[in-house]
């Protein structure tokens, strides 16, 4: 299996810098996601790893070996494309056999390996179908099987679930993740869907404007975003201004906010003046009016089954978004009390 190391990777299209000197190490068997809005350079990065785009500068190493000058067909990668890119004139079995034929695998081995992988993606009975005779989800699994059957060093996936409907997309997330763990293949997954990136990945690399804004475990990214951009891209967030009052116990700083004074983690001891704080909507709890906490008015509520989203207006006019379980329900116009644990605040650095 393979460890991937990207160093100072750059793609300059002349008119624009699509990827601007990114460096990241991907451990053997690790599943990492490149997450970001369209145009952030994530797909260009993937294409450079695959060998479809030439890097302007920097290195891409597979197990220490620079592959920048190795053509795509010699890199030994398995790639799944957003639109699956199955060969429409070949049956499922022929699609799977193609990569093996290129590797001069014997006919009988092709048959066994193809059958084994088809079983893995639960498509055993479909070997003789043409791609157009399959549903989107089935085509997706054929694409996955075709990439895996060659037993590549690295698996690359370019927004593979973007064309599926919501329910199937969630099923496929679990399916791909389980399969990846079973096979143990180093995987790079490109997506603009933060939920997808977080549920599937060991590590998430958040990209903006051709640079890595933050990388780390999904929980790191979500709970300790470094910038306002990252915080807002990865889920919903309330951004609050706070004023550092004094040092508090356990490396915390006392910060005064519109929701009251809290002992907040992660603020440098030397800090003074104002800080920007992130507060996730689900970190806020609501109680009936008049109890201890900040008072607010419900201006809208959005019920989505397992959760309810509220938009609250504080007495000073500021808006706070809250997400709770629908245990207690409030409707527009109700007065509520906001309760927050100081540990749920996280300070944001200035955006890069």
């Amino acid at each position: 299996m393979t460890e991937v190391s990207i160093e100072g990777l750059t793609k300059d299209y002349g008119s624009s810098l699509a990827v601007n000197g990114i460096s990241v190490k991907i451990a053997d068997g690790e599943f990492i996601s490149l997450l970001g809005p369209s145009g952030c350079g994530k797909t260009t990065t993937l294409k450079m790893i695959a060998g479809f785009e030439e890097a302007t500068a920097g290195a891409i190493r597979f197990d220490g070996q620079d592959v920048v000058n190795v053509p795509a067909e010699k890199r030994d990668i398995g790639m799944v494309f957003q639109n699956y890119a199955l060969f429409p004139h070949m049956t499922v079995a022929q699609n799977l056999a193609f990569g093996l034929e290129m590797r001069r695998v014997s006919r009988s081995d092709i048959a066994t390996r193809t059958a084994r992988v088809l079983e893995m993606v639960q498509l055993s009975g479909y070997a003789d179908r043409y791609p157009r005779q399959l549903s989107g989800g089935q085509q997706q699994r054929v694409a996955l099987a075709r990439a895996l059957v060659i037993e590549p060093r690295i698996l690359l996936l370019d927004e593979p679930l973007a064309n599926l409907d919501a329910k199937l997309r969630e099923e496929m997330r679990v399916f791909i993740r389980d399969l990846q763990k079973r096979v143990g293949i180093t995987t790079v997954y490109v997506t603009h869907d933060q939920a997808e990136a977080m549920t599937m990945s060991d590590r998430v690399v958040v990209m903006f404007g051709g640079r890595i804004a933050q990388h780390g475990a999904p929980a790191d990214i979500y709970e300790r975003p470094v910038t306002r951009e990252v915080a807002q891209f990865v889920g919903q967030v309330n951004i609050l201004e706070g004023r550092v009052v004094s040092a508090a116990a356990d490396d915390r700083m006392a910060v005064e906010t519109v929701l009251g004074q809290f002992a907040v983690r992660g603020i440098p001891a030397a800090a003074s003046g104002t800080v920007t704080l992130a507060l996730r909507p689900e970190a806020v709890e609501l109680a009936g009016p008049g109890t201890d906490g900040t008072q607010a008015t419900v201006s809208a509520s959005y019920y989505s089954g397992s959760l309810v989203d509220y938009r609250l207006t504080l007495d000073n006019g500021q808006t706070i978004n809250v997400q709770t379980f629908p245990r207690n329900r409030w409707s527009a116009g109700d007065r509520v009390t906001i309760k927050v644990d100081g540990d749920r605040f996280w300070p944001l650095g200035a955006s890069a």
Partner: protein
Amino acid sequence: MTISARSAKPFLLIAPAAVLLGVFLVLPYINIGIMSFRNPGNGSPYAPGFTTGNYLRLFSDSFYLVQVGNTLMIGAITTLACLVLGFPVAWQLARSQMRFRGLAYGLVLSPLLVGIVIRSYGWTILLGNNGMINRTLINMGLIDRPLALMYNSLGIVIALVHVFLPFMILPLMSAIQGIDPSIEAAARSLGAGRVTAFRRIVLPLAMPGIQAGCILVFVLSLSAYVTPSLIGGLRVKTMAVSVVDALIDTFQWPFGSAMALLLSLTGALVVLIFARLTRMKWKAN
């Protein structure tokens, strides 16, 4: 809407075209078919009574059979040349985002903008013994005597390729545009080099366009009259030229009709065999 009214609708949609084809294609063909069995006339286009003599004459005279063979050969070579020359152009037009794409597209269509007679005369100026090409080559000292570029099959093929290239490029272009570039990328990622990816993936997927373009160019080449008659002159005659000679110059309507039918039928047979050989299983339902 009632069921019968609904099922009548498709027929209404094709009716105008069907009537047009019926009146101006099927009826004339029937007429030609009947004419081909009439007795040759003496001083008139045909005489009363019927005979199979026209066909017997056609099949017993190797002159005409060789001519059929030549015509088919000219058609096949023209088609192949259009395919080989047209594919890279179609590819470039379909795939590149070059700045002058519109201009290039116009250039591809440009042979169709000039009348066929004018264009063929143009070729005689270029290809003749005293023509521009031979003059230039002689003046440059590359050849002593003019190359035979006119009054032979080569000249006809050159001129036909020029005229019919757009009919090859346009269907090829739309077929290539229909091939998702990521399909090629997928082939590359699976270990296929550029050549293999082209042969195993691009070519089969472009086949509908290749098929359409080849059939169009082949059929047009068989039935071409003006270009072969001007460039071939009296020395090389294609079937179409001979048919017109028989009908208009020597006034042998029955024999001319028999030749015309033979030309159509052999052409149709070749197209049928070609379509059969290039049948795409993956396209069928």
